[in-house]
């Protein structure tokens, strides 16, 4: 039994936008794996809900004419993992979201909910940051697109404006082509857990696989929102592939991350794991890209 004031079920995106305008206090619910938990805890007790769960137009992964990959915001984690486009071009995203919770949560949980929740530990978030994903929002004034790192304002707060809902997540061709990545979820157990630290690395190598053309790395739980370690990325760009590079890349992440001390994990411990994870994820990414270390 949930303490719910009202539930409005949107029929399509336009209807969702109009419901948002009519009920500005209402909370958006998609799969419900976060919202319902918080209602039960009392944090969102007594709220109005706008359910967008029935909007099938927001489900699925497609490729647009210019090669942009579009992930509908209501696409579940399980569907992302099994999607052939994701598997071919951004397999690491499928692997990352396959580590969310357990099978039931992955069937109900959506990538839109995972990002709109605004938490730093979301398993999709670090990889989407590392691939420079774009968030698409639809509102009364039409469609608005912004880079994912701008979408995250602060812990628990994202840039969704009056009347808007998130409708898709896009990854442009230049961001995924010839790029290979690896995600390490560091958690206290192997299922049903949130990340103590999430590390997502991807690299593009030169044609001869000897040089790193581009390396990107993003962390979850290394700060209040997911963040990139740009110093390490700059350090690796254009450098020959080697174990020494992996070590240097890993050490450089310390310049950009700022994990906090909490009862869940100490700052120095998270820092240590970040360096080790960066190294391992870099090495794995290079191997996936065909490089040798």
């Amino acid at each position, binding site marked *: *039994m949930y*303490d719910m004031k009202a539930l409005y079920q949107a029929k399509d995106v336009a209807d969702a936008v109009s419901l948002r305008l009519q009920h500005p206090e209402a909370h958006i619910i998609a799969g419900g794996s976060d919202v319902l938990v918080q209602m039960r805890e*009392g944090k969102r007790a007594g709220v109005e809900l706008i359910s967008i769960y029935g909007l099938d137009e927001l489900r699925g992964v497609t490729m647009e004419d210019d090669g942009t990959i579009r992930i509908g915001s209501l696409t579940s984690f399980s569907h992302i993992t099994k999607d052939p486009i994701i598997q071919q071009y951004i397999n690491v995203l499928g692997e990352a979201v396959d580590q969310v919770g357990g099978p039931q949560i992955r069937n109900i949980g959506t990538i839109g909910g995972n990002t709109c929740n605004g938490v730093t530990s979301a398993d999709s978030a670090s990889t989407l940051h590392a691939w420079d994903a774009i968030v698409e929002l639809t509102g009364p004034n039409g469609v608005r697109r912004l880079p994912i790192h701008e979408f995250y304002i602060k812990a628990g707060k994202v840039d969704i404006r009056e009347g808007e809902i998130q409708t898709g997540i896009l990854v442009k061709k230049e961001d995924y082509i010839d790029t290979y990545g690896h995600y390490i979820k560091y958690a*206290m*157990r192997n*299922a049903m857990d949130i990340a*103590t630290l999430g590390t997502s690395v991807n690299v593009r190598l030169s044609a001869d696989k000897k040089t790193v053309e581009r390396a990107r790395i993003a962390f979850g739980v290394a700060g209040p929102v997911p963040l990139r370690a740009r110093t390490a990325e700059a350090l690796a760009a254009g450098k020959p592939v080697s174990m020494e590079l992996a070590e240097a890349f890993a050490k450089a992440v310390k310049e950009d991350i700022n994990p906090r001390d909490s*009862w869940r994990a*100490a700052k120095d411990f998270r820092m240590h*794991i970040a360096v080790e994870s960066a190294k391992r994820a870099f090495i794995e990414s290079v191997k996936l890209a065909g490089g040798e270390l």
Partner: protein
Amino acid sequence: MSKSVGKSVTRVDAYEKATGRAKYMDDLCDRGALVVKILHSTIAHGYVKSIDTTAAEAIPGVVRILTCFDVPDIPFPTAGHPWSTDPGHQDVADRLLLNRHVRYYGDDVAVVIAENEVIAAQAVRALKVEYEELPFVLDVQKAMEDDAPQLHEKYANNILKHTDIRRGNYEEARKEPGLICVEGWYDTPTVQHCHIENHGCYAYEDSGRVVVVSSTQIPHIVRRVVGQALGIPWGKVRVIKPYIGGGFGNKQDALYEPLCAWCSTQVGGRLVKLECSREETFVSNRVRHAIRTHIISYVRPDGTLVARKFEAFSNQGAYASHGHGVVAKGMGAFPQLYPCDNLECDCWSVFTNRPAAGAMRGYGIPQAMFAGEAHIDDICQAIGMDPLSFRRKNLMPVGYVDGFSKNELYHDSFNQCINKGMEILGYEEKLKEYQNQTGPIRRGVGLAVFWYNTAVWPISLESSSCRMVLNQDGSLQFQTGETEIGQGCDTAYSQMVADAVGVPLKDVHVVSSQDTDITPFGLGAYASRQTYIGSFAIAQTAAALRERILRIAHDQTRMPVSNLDLVDGQIVRKSDGRVLKSLGDLAMECLYSLEASEHITAETTAQIKTNAYSFGCSLAEVEVDIPMCKVKLLNIVNVHDCGRLINPALAEAQVHGGMSMGIGYGLSEELKFDEKTGKPLNNNLLDYKLSTFVDHPTLEAAFVENAEPTAPFGTKSLGEPPACSPAPAIRNAILQATGVAIDTCPITPHVLYREFKKAGLIEE
């Protein structure tokens, strides 16, 4: 005569449970029940000065609000122990239904009774409590200091109880020249049982009596406690126990049955239901005692134990519950497991402002085995002896008899179990292979043993009653006061009944539910007692029923009783083996006889004045990723000598469950508290790291079956033993892999990070 015992027959409740037809507390409760929700304190220690109920009472659907200012002033005990008629041995009565003096963050302050759970939750949030805060203490040894906050008036320095064991002369013996001294402090955590069904109950009044249907392990004991707490005659209380979703000792306490029963009496006897959330279950039910253990051993270079000191500080939390019995049991194992002539052992149970600690699977032994078995490997490191040889040399020898319980080690159980485990794990080869490793990822193997009693004699009463009723078709019902809580005792008992009476298993119907109005007196599921204790009552009642059946068979056949037998549901003439009639025909003729109609039943009580040692070991193989501070459990084996197996498949399942709990205990589970407020930090299944299916390797369970001579079916305890030795085995495997001796569990990545840094395995 054994046709059923010893076979892996299908659980008698398998189909009901697998299809969802089995009814649990909440399934049985009428949907019109009023809902009771508890307001828990948000301070760790202090007094409730006032509670403003105005806003809550204004919410439509709120029926009644009751606070700590309304409850009867009757302190009552909650421990699920048999009552003692000797006041000196009675449990500590330190609880009220709701408390003005709150002693932990989560204590019970007030209740709302409302038409549904949403209204009840809203009203609880609307209650305004004014507290007078007092200083609080969470650490067991700090609580013993002179200036520590005092929780209960009568217990100076918060010491609920202190007991000791002295043997020989420790101080003199340790002066022997050439001895090596090994000293360690070992910490075990506060953990919770995490049974799948949270505790809940419902209550109503019927004909001037109060009826409570509860998810409990101990219905007859709960009836007594409800009577005590409400100050009403025990006969005015009826407790019914349906199927329950596990207990592991948490439900071996009166939890919220007294409060729920009282709530019903305050709303005119209407049906009220009180269900704990998971968050409440973690904090406001019971937890396992966190115990800090200090061990000093003086050892000769050849591995002979000369003098030993043992001190254990048991964190009791806010209320006595099971109290000192838990750490005392752990201490009791110390002199027996590795006999030594010179001993000084002390243990203390100490109140702190944490959730009350009660019974949990193992009752002090998992803590004692973690400390004791870790210490044995520390000794081996210090003297350069291999842990296996040391154990073979020093473990309890065959023929050992404990002076108090009169338990005896009849067989070479320890060596047999260890040998079997070594073979399964490939221990010797791996031990060699994993020596002198370098590099970031290393493997190791570890061993730990355990000792366990069966049941509680001679500390407390042991008795069990059984009733059997024969039907017209030759089938029978039986009931005992001992409870099915998921462990499978209904099935094991059915097998025993079939063999002891002489009928096929299909003709045995267990009455699974206990109802204190109907069910014969019994004490319930705890102390790994039921298969052992229940077997006496079953054997005795079956004998009585058989005697009666054979007497009737004599009346019907004219054959002398001495020449009659009941075999597989048939009355057989022993001299020629001829089947004279079926038991069904006998029963039909007897029940409907126009001359001598008889209701064919038997009911007896067996009092048991024996106990039995149960033994075993765990062997673990781990892979440690040093830079990542992670342990991967590759293999784990438990081997048990629990006597003769009644149902091998159920025994194996029991061991798997215990191993899983032991793995969580060793590697991940711990209830944490905020040092500044005393607030529990992780009282939910996301933040409390119960180990999952994917954190386990294949769990290997094996058995050595030495029949227990004191018991009718040769069996002894297996309920709690499987959870006793996995954690220290894992700890000792990490020691072999890395050379780092971890003295605390759970051995989480946080702990490994700290210890590896200290050992120089991780650089800054």
